């Protein structure tokens, strides 16, 4: 029966004897990585207040200019989420019902998901500048351009999330509805309501990611609340003031995440076991098809604008060869940091999945706290890491390339766990039970059952952490080792201090690396998903 009452079995549910030493050690490492920076910030804030800076506490209450700034930021980000969700669902519907041999291409949008927003900003400012769409005297600015660019930057993520949401709607439920109503009615009355929890959570994530980003608004001359935090730290160099100023954002992030998690927990559908959702192509109305085509055009623009503009700028200026050579060290450093973060992030995510997905521990508050760092302002992670490691007896980590790795893990390790949990929930629970029944040794079960079945999640987690780390800027800006520069830092510096052809060349390198990671991840996910598929209904 398809219902929400099917319990999730755990790897160790029967006869579970409590956490072992390994599990405790793992959680200690994970907690240190994720919450160490926040603990350091809290201690810094407490110390500052104890020193007599009680009036700093007022920074946590936005009033006057800061309140209107916060409201404007929230409004902009709600618009970004609404645009992305609408376009994402339209595109997902088109891609979802595409022919089976193109099924792997459904995951291609994710390939561009990790491209840093400021690269989109550069490309769109170039296009809009040439079209003279915005601004006076050629200077681009404006809230709506900022919203549009941010929506474009996050669109691949929205498409991916919408696709995942639709994939969770079981085929028999769609089939049963199709025998009585046209496909558009089936979409409105059955598919979207069933996908709503995941779609809503996806919208919340997009809202949070745009709320925490300041790079795009700042490039278009728009002030937002996240930029205010960065400006405050740059001006005062006081971690406590930056932390207190960010409290409203932290509260919003915590609230959105809590609501999203609650909604997801109550989601009432079972996942699909790898079968195609449409046996026969759906019949959409003309209006809906028109909407789909418009959305596909937006998607094409979203992908083409950065690619074409950056390639055009690079080729026309001949900057490709002049930038690639001198940037070799930065590329190698960024690559190394991203690989290290992916390699360390996966086992951490695996262990977290064991606990959070299996139901061994209560996952409500623990899960919420675990995923919270993803939605928090990146500069604060950097500030917290500096406060944590820049002290005597801290093991000499500060000032090394491990700091950006730690920053990436603090921000993105939960995403590796999320990818694994999503894959874990896609697998028929009976397969885990069967593995438990027939297992000889635990490591054999891991090698022969868990790893193969979770392989798509491993591929998704690794490529996601790799690509996001490659483009990470907010925290890296603060923790980068002296004398060394990552690719993102070099781009960021050039963006502010000129050299658009050089920026274009570097952005193109970044784009190609991200694209390679994304395509590789998408291909591996598709290949392993097909292999794990249980086949068709006969």
């Amino acid at each position, binding site marked *: *029966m*398809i*219902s*929400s*009452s099917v319990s999730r079995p755990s790897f160790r549910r029967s006869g579970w004897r409590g956490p072992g030493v390994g599990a405790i050690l793992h959680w200690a490492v994970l907690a240190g990585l994720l919450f160490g920076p926040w603990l350091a910030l809290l201690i810094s804030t407490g110390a500052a207040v104890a020193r007599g800076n009680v009036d700093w506490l007022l920074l946590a209450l936005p009033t006057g200019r800061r309140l209107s700034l916060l409201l404007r930021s929230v409004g902009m980000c709600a618009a970004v989420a609404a645009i992305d969700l609408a376009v994402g669902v339209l595109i997902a519907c088109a891609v979802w019902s595409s022919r089976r041999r193109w099924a792997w291409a459904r995951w291609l949008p994710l390939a561009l998901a990790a491209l840093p927003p400021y690269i989109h900003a550069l490309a769109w400012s170039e296009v809009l500048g040439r079209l003279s769409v915005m601004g006076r005297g050629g200077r681009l600015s404006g809230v709506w351009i900022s919203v549009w660019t941010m929506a474009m930057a996050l669109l691949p993520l929205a498409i991916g999330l919408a696709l995942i949401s639709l994939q969770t709607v*079981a085929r*028999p*439920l769609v*089939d*049963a*509805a*199709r*025998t*009585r*109503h*046209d*496909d558009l009615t089936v979409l409105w*009355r*059955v598919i979207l*309501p*069933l996908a709503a929890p995941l779609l809503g959570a996806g919208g919340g994530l997009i809202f949070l990611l745009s709320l925490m980003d300041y790079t795009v608004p700042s490039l278009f001359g728009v002030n937002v609340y996240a930029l205010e935090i960065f400006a405050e730290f740059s001006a005062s160099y006081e971690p406590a003031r930056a932390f207190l100023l960010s409290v409203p954002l932290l509260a919003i992030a915590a609230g959105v995440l809590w609501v999203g998690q609650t909604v997801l927990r109550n989601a*009432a*559908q079972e996942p699909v076991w790898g079968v195609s959702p449409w*046996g*026969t192509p759906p*019949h959409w109305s003309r209006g809906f098809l028109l909407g789909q085509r418009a959305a596909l055009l937006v998607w094409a623009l979203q992908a083409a604008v950065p690619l074409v503009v950056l390639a055009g700028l690079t080729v026309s200026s001949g900057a490709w060869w002049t930038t690639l050579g001198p940037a070799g060290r930065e590329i190698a450093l960024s690559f190394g940091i991203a690989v290290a973060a992916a390699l360390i992030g996966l086992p951490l995510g695996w262990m977290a999945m064991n606990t959070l997905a299996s139901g061994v521990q209560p996952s409500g508050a623990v899960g919420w706290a675990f995923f919270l760092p993803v939605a928090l302002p990146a500069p604060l992670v950097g500030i917290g890491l500096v406060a944590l490691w820049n002290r005597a007896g801290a093991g000499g980590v500060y000032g090394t390339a491990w700091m950006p790795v730690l920053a990436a893990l603090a921000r993105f390790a939960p995403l590796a766990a999320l990818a694994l949990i999503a894959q874990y929930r896609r697998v028929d629970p009976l397969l885990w039970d069967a593995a438990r029944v027939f297992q000889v040794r635990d490591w054999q079960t891991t090698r022969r059952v868990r790893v193969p079945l979770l392989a798509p999640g491993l591929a998704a987690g690794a490529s996601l952490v790799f690509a996001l780390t490659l483009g990470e800027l907010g925290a890296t800006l603060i923790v980068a080792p002296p004398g060394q520069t990552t690719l993102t830092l070099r781009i960021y510096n050039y963006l502010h201090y000129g050299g658009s052809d050089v920026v274009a060349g570097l952005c193109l390198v970044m784009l190609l690396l991200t694209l390679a990671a994304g395509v590789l991840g998408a291909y591996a996910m598709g290949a392993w998903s097909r292999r794990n598929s249980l*086949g*068709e*209904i*006969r």
Partner: protein
Amino acid sequence: MNVVEIRRLSKAYGPVRVLEEFSLEAPKAGRVAVLGPSGCGKTTLLRLIAGLDLPDGGEILLHGRSASRPDWALAPHLRNLGVVFQSPALWPHMSAAENIRFGLSQLDRAAADDRAAGLMRSLGLDGLGERYPHELSGGEARRVALARALAPRPELLLLDEPLTNLNAVLKQQVHDVLQAHLDEHRPVLIYVTHDPSEVSTGFEQVVTLAGRDTV
């Protein structure tokens, strides 16, 4: 004229051929039983008739008009059919009564309520209308699925192992309701099962599917 006519229908999943040049004719009020072991293509046959899958070869005609070919299929909701799937496939965000009323959009609310209530009463589901699928037992869910298929009084009824998960008493009850519905509304019935005892009486045609070949 036959309501359903199947001409040399073929379907394969990759190298596995589940249906090969299968033909069938069913006139109005015709009752056809399809027997066969697991994986022989019974469910595939129902999905093809319902327009939920495309055939690889052959054709399905409804009232003499082409409804499914390898390159085209009439939309399922335009075929005036009711289906009970192997799993109940109840929509989890709708109550039992809402599930049953889903196909009754041509009726006003009061008439739809009456019809749903009547079916629930006859199937022993009184008082369960407001329950959601996860609050129903396996047998209750199957009966709700049957009520949902019967409610619109379709011209073509496709039942895929409808008595699974029911005890002997419930099987008899469902059988009686189904019999009354067939006598009153005279739809074409295509009844799929692996159990020969379910189709020993009352069917004009009993078709046995042998199994699958590898291409």
